[in-house]
């Protein structure tokens, strides 16, 4: 089977669509995508803040009732319609193409700032050895804000480049570019096959080292002691659903794209359960490692764990450096911790970029290398212009908050409503999943995706709209949040509509003989619809 090719010298694809060469590599890559910075720096604090040990109950409910069912929705669309997000949605229904471009644009925004955090973490590996922050009188916080990021006092957009961030960011983009050009099997699979085992080994050593620090037990005690009263608070349940939703990378287009590279006879649900529990398994490990380390920090400062507990950038770049300076073999803790952030971040960044590269590859019908260059080069340039600057932190903070809530969350809500109640496609998708999967999807899945999904996502979105309207995000000026928060989130929707209006050319993958064959094979294997339903 061959695809159309051009004689005019355009770099058109003539090769077959790539597939993951084995199930193991797909699972490893999907775990690599799901396990990101959030697993390490977000989960431990979310669990601690929302009931400690008791958080396990809403967390498990959220995994089983929202996380995994939504993951299967992504898998089913990507695998059945075998395309990048815009093409797969278009093949499912012409009118849903816009959702795919919305996800592509969301991934673009995330990619430009994600690379900055990976670069910071890479620099902090080195600083852990030199203990660079010890020289700053204000400690790790003063070092991070003033010496390292050189954060400007006024919130705005400046183009004052900070060389110490620009160079590692450039390296992150070059490494990523090489991986992306190499493609699904030689690039993405290989990178995950190397980085993921390395991440797990490094993180396990870090956790073992942390639990033997003085005071670690107090940290673990704080982390696991259940607060049962929290279970009566709806905010705790919303936190569990929200966390799982972001942690599993559902509704980004990533899982649609990755599952489109799976063989036709794949055990989709069986693989999905492994991915979901591996993601949670890593989070639990992170919770133990982080709270053991925070227990040590509290012990050293003579304060309580509650005083030092934090998440996100504050945990990674302010609390951990303090621990690195004080702990025995602290340098090793630092290298393992920041190295883990680099590997967890890189494997996620690759998956985010693949959503964009695959979309352009399908739209243009180009080969891997030119399609990657035409996507990754502009993304890298925009990222390198906006983020290694004295105002990069403000931009990153606002864009991250708004793209998560009014990009991913809003898109997911539209997705479940459209595919559930709108198009009524869930029975068809369940049938596709069930053909070769070990765990079958039935009415339960359709109710969870079509009913519980919209209810939970809608509740979270309304809460977020209210909180962001009531007070300016992070206290930033209204114009700043207006442009880079609300404006950016709105622009993604407008951009997605415009992209979906651009016609698919004759070289694009819209009429792909390979897909037509796939479609025929899928339909030949499907159970025919029952006839005579009226009886």
């Amino acid at each position: 089977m061959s695809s159309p090719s051009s004689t005019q010298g355009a770099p058109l694809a003539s090769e077959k669509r790539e597939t993951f060469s084995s199930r193991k590599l797909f699972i490893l890559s999907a775990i690599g995508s799901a396990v990101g910075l959030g697993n390490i720096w977000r989960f431990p604090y979310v669990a601690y803040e929302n009931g400690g040990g008791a958080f396990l109950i809403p967390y498990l409910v959220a995994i089983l009732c929202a996380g995994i069912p939504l993951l299967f929705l992504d898998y089913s669309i990507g695998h059945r319609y075998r395309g990048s997000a815009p093409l797969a949605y278009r093949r499912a229904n012409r009118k849903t193409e816009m959702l795919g471009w919305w996800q592509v644009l969301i991934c673009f925004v995330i990619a430009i700032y994600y690379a900055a955090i990976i670069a910071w973490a890479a620099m902090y590996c080195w600083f852990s050895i030199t203990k660079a922050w010890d020289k700053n009188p204000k400690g790790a916080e003063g070092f991070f804000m003033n010496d390292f990021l050189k954060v400007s006092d006024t919130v705005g957009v400046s183009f004052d480049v900070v060389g110490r961030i620009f160079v590692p960011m450039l390296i992150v983009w070059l490494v990523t570019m090489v991986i992306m050009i190499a493609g699904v099997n030689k690039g993405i699979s290989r990178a995950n096959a190397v980085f993921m085992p390395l991440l797990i080994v490094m993180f396990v050593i870090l956790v073992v080292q942390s639990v033997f620090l003085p005071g670690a037990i107090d940290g673990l005690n704080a982390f696991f002691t259940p607060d049962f009263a929290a279970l009566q608070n709806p905010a705790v349940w919303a936190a569990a659903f929200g966390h799982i939703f972001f942690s599993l990378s559902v509704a980004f287009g990533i899982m649609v794209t990755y599952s489109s590279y799976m063989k036709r006879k794949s055990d989709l649900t069986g693989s999905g359960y492994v991915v979901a529990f591996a993601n949670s398994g890593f989070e639990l490990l992170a919770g133990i490692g982080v709270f053991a380390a925070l227990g040590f920090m509290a012990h050293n400062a003579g304060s309580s764990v509650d005083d030092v507990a934090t998440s996100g950038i504050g945990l990674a770049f302010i609390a951990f450096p303090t621990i690195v300076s004080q702990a025995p073999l602290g340098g090793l803790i630092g290298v393992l911790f920041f190295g883990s952030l680099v590997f967890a971040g890189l494997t996620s960044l690759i998956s985010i970029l693949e959503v964009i590269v695959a979309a352009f590859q399908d739209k243009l019908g180009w080969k891997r290398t030119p399609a990657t260059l035409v996507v990754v080069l502009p993304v890298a340039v925009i990222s390198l212009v906006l983020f290694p600057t004295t105002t990069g932190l403000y931009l990153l903070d606002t864009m991250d908050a708004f793209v998560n809530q009014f990009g991913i969350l809003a898109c997911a809500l539209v997705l479940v409503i459209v595919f559930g109640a709108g198009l009524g496609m869930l029975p068809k998708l369940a049938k596709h999943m069930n053909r070769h999967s070990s765990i079958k999807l039935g009415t339960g899945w359709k109710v969870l995706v079509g009913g519980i999904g919209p209810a939970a996502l809608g509740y979270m979105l309304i809460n977020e709209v209210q909180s962001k309207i009531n007070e300016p995000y992070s206290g930033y000026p209204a114009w700043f949040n207006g442009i880079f928060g609300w404006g950016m989130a709105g622009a993604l929707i407008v951009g997605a509509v415009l992209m979906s209006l651009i016609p698919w050319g004759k070289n694009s993958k819209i009429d792909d003989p390979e897909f037509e064959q796939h479609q025929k094979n899928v339909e030949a294997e499907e159970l025919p619809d029952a006839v005579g339903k009226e009886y």
Partner: protein
Amino acid sequence: MSGIAIVFMIISMLTIWGGLAISLINLSRNPEKDDDHVIETAEPAGNSNL
């Protein structure tokens, strides 16, 4: 560590890491098929269980 914290630590480990172990066992019992070119027509059997 208090007794209840230890109990919840163990329950968390058993459910999450245990869930991972069960998922892996389930997957290993359903080996990967490498014959994508062969059409397997569906048999009208099999019920949903989720």
